[in-house]
């Protein structure tokens, strides 16, 4: 076991965890990091620095709903003859830590329950004849690998601290980690480690005690709010998180007032990770520019926000230090340490065939989410015990009498007949994920994008009952881009698709690859059916490598052709259906799109001037 203090690197993550230990009302810490960065080791070591006896509950990814929320403890119920309640994982974590490894892979209904518990501070159990409220105030510690997909925004919103994602590329840090790990293995229970741990614990105790006395000036508060605004952070809850983080940081440093470093840390861990836009720093504005001009001029809405902030500024002018604008300046610093673009490491080797690509039925008897019970054969699925008991219960008296009459011996407390047996009916996250892959290059790009957008909205509005999802990938220039991650929301689709770039080369292969990756990710979250909708003339002219690495030699026509053929074969071998919609007006220039369709399973639609509905219908057919 590696102790908290032994872990080298991940300093920001460590700081975040310590802030959380000081003020659990920060909600939690989410740590994104690549495989092998030691994130889960760190999260588990977090338990060491907490007060003794604090629950630390790990949430397994395959948790069932009744284990998560709680339900009837069947065994005890049968033994005692009265209903005995079993608490779920969420309530077991009460006043402690709920730890989720691979948070982004957690099933969406489980995520909803975690969110709900965090919002209420308790779990409402309304299941199988039970109606209970269990307290459930916990700190959520989640780690995940961003290449597995993102964590749902709604959940992140309830977690105060989000550690910015960085990959560890510094070999010195790596070497240090290795050395430290080796050292730990050599000397189990090393004295130094224990002393260090105790020191940290003492520090945290002192900070917790000091926390109620730590205060923040009004200007500092305004600065935080203003920063949240200029970063375009959604919602008002973040303000509270950021303020709490700053206060906790001050307490951790044995101060009762908040200083620059505290604010910076709060910005880094609370606001910057939620930014929806990055304000640009104007280099030349370092000296006496009036505060009005510090905001980038292209954001008109900031004008009215500026007005109320000015008044307190005037009061605070004397003490030059902590005007809200100064704090915004700090924020800029924090932004600059922003996460580096994470570069996807592509390996085309993973062409293995996956069985789950086959069409699954929406309702089945084995997996997915348990929705209700129905009559059925014991062997045809999982037996729903409580409903079975319920249906057997009223007949107990009469059955016992009957048996007694027949002279049978009664050796069981309960007589359950075949017709009582209920089996669980599960619901798989059914529905199809439609991935639109739209050529955004060339002169017809605007037209194609409009058609795609219309088709996306159309599909979303009409396909509600099927729980279908839609994603959209556009490609142009060197690389493809996931404009709309898998979503069911018309609103989101509308918003994300409003701005669409066009022009440049045609990286078809890159788009295919991205679509395939997106599908694979969705598969881990339970989607089983996919449909790729290509809206293109089928002519790719940029190789996969050029998208990743600008210095890569330009791929030849044959190489590009090969990439596309290979990808197409992999996609269809993976059980993914595709259609190719050709909207080319010029009949003579056709030829490439049908060839692409040939590679992808021969579903080709020639729809010049296509209406959005037509494309949507073609996709659903």
């Amino acid at each position: 076991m590696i102790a908290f203090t032994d872990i080298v690197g991940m300093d920001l993550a460590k700081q975040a965890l310590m802030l959380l230990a000081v003020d659990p009302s920060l909600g939690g810490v989410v740590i994104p990091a690549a495989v092998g960065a030691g994130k889960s080791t760190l999260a588990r070591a977090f338990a060491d620095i907490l007060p003794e006896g604090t629950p630390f509950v790990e949430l397994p990814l395959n948790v069932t709903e009744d284990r998560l929320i709680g339900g009837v403890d069947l065994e005890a119920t049968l033994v005692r003859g009265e209903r005995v309640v079993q608490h779920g994982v969420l309530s077991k974590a009460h006043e402690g830590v709920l730890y989720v490894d691979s948070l982004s892979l957690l099933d969406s209904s489980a995520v909803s329950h975690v969110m709900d518990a965090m919002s209420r501070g308790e779990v409402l159990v309304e299941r199988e004849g039970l109606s209970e409220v269990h307290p459930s105030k916990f700190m959520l510690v989640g780690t995940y690998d961003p290449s597995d997909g993102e964590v749902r925004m709604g959940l992140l919103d309830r977690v105060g601290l989000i550690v910015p994602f960085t990959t560890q590329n510094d070999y010195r840090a790596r070497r240090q980690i290795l050395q430290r790990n080796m050292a730990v293995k050599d000397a189990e229970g090393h004295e130094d480690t224990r002393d260090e741990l105790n020191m940290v614990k003492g520090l945290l105790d002192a900070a917790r005690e000091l926390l109620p006395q730590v205060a923040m000036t009004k200007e500092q508060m305004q600065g935080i709010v203003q920063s949240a605004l200029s970063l375009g952070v959604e919602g008002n809850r973040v303000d509270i998180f950021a303020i709490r983080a700053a206060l906790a940081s001050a307490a951790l440093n044995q101060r009762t007032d908040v200083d620059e470093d505290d604010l910076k840390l709060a910005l880094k861990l609370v606001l910057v990770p939620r930014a929806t836009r990055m304000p640009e720093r104007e280099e030349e504005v370092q000296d006496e520019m009036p505060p009005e001009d510090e905001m980038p001029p292209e954001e008109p809405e900031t004008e009215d926000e500026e007005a109320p902030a000015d008044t307190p500024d005037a009061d605070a002018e004397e003490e030059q230090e902590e005007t809200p604008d100064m704090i915004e300046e700090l924020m800029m610093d924090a932004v600059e340490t922003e996460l580096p673009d994470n570069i996807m490491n592509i390996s085309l080797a993973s062409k293995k065939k996956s069985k789950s690509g086959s069409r699954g039925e929406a309702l089945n008897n084995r997996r997915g989410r348990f929705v209700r019970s129905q009559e059925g054969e014991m062997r045809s699925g999982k037996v729903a015990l409580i409903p079975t008991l319920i249906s057997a219960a009223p007949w107990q008296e009469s059955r016992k009498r009957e048996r007694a009459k027949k002279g049978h011996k009664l050796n069981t407390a309960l007589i359950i007949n075949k017709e009582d047996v209920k089996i669980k009916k599960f619901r798989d996250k059914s529905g199809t994920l439609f991935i639109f892959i739209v050529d955004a290059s060339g002169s017809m790009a605007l037209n194609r994008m409009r058609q795609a957008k219309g088709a996306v909205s159309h599909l979303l509005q009409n396909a509600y009952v099927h729980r279908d999802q839609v994603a959209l990938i556009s490609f142009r220039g060197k690389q493809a881009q996931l404009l709309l991650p898998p979503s069911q929301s018309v609103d989101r689709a509308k918003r994300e698709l409003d701005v669409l770039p066009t022009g440049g080369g045609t990286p078809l292969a890159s788009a295919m690859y991205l679509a395939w990756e997106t599908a694979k990710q969705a598969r881990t979250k339970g989607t089983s059916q996919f449909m790729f909708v290509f809206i293109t003339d089928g002519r790719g002219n940029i190789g996969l490598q050029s998208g990743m690495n600008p210095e890569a030699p330009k791929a030849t026509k044959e190489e590009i052709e090969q990439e596309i053929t290979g990808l197409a074969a992999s996609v269809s071998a993976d059980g993914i259906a595709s259609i190719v919609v050709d909207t080319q007006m010029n009949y003579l220039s056709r030829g490439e799109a049908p060839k692409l369709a040939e590679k992808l399973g021969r579903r080709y639609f020639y729809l010049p001037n296509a209406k959005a509905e037509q494309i949507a219908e073609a996709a659903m057919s």
Partner: protein
Amino acid sequence: MTQTASAAKKTASAKAKAGAAAKASAGPKKARTKKKQGQAFPFTAIVGQEEMKLSLILNIIDPRIGGVLVMGHRGTGKSTTVRALAEVLPSIERVKDDVYNRTVSQFIEMEKTGKDGKALTAADMTIEDIQVPVVDLPLGATEDRVCGTIDIEQALTSGVKAFEPGLLAQANRGFLYIDEVNLLDDHLVDVLLDVAASGRNVVEREGISIRHPARFVLVGSGNPEEGELRPQLLDRFGLHARIITITDVESRVDIVKRRREYDDDPEAYVKKWDKEQKKLQARILKAKDLLPAITMSDDVLTDIARLCMQLGIDGHRGELTITRTAHAFAAFNGDKEVTMEHVKEIAGLALRHRLRKDPLETLDPGEKIERELAKVLGEEVDA
């Protein structure tokens, strides 16, 4: 080491309230505590979000408006506001201990006879005052708990087939709240649609056949980016309040301050706002009393009909909702007659979600309604 550890434990346990006690409860269900622990944030202390607050208040004044759907950004106080609602609700009369919250006349009409087989009369029954119930429907609820089912304990121990009412029974004559309503499972949505349309819950399962009244104000909240709401369910909501991030720095600082003050000492904070809460409650009660006496001229009615026609709204639920809401709004303002000024204020709430969805439409529904409204009123439209 042990010293620091025990000190830490002290702080941790000091923070804990009655939590540990509840944890040990494994007893029979009758002992369950459904009451929210601690006090909710005061409704009147919520900064901004007037649209949502008004919609909720109008539904208290006239529950026939048909509920509110609150959609909007994360972290903007949606669920806080709905949960704060309970404290400003008036009380209703029901037959004592009736699980369906029925009035005396409803009780007599349904039950007809008492346990002894004699015809019931009003004199037989005791009445009690209860606060209008607010029932929380969590996403993980199973159908049997929502609709009610056989009481398994009674069935197992005494072989009696007794009905154990579900959340729909508890919500009768009150509010039914669903957070993250757009994530609700389809089969529960089916149940809700059915019950909301008929006002009664019919249970035919496990050898039980029961029907009971289930009329409630449906309140849903959610973030549109998490998923779409089923169109039929959307149509069920009388009003649609939109909620967005507050962007005014002063208000936001105010929010933070109030929240922190409340977190530090909830009881003292609730007390501090007691006067405001009482004031609002009184105003709502007055509006409720005034409501039956409120009139609306035919001209206003015609204008409403024209507005709905021009917006191309299907069916008549739009007109009906707008009319009821305008009445409630007038009552809330202490006005005896509904004017187009009232209508103007609430038209967006009542119609926003009833406009036909056009994927390529860029105009916000609210703006569209305002524009048409201006046309109906013969005002200049600056396009």
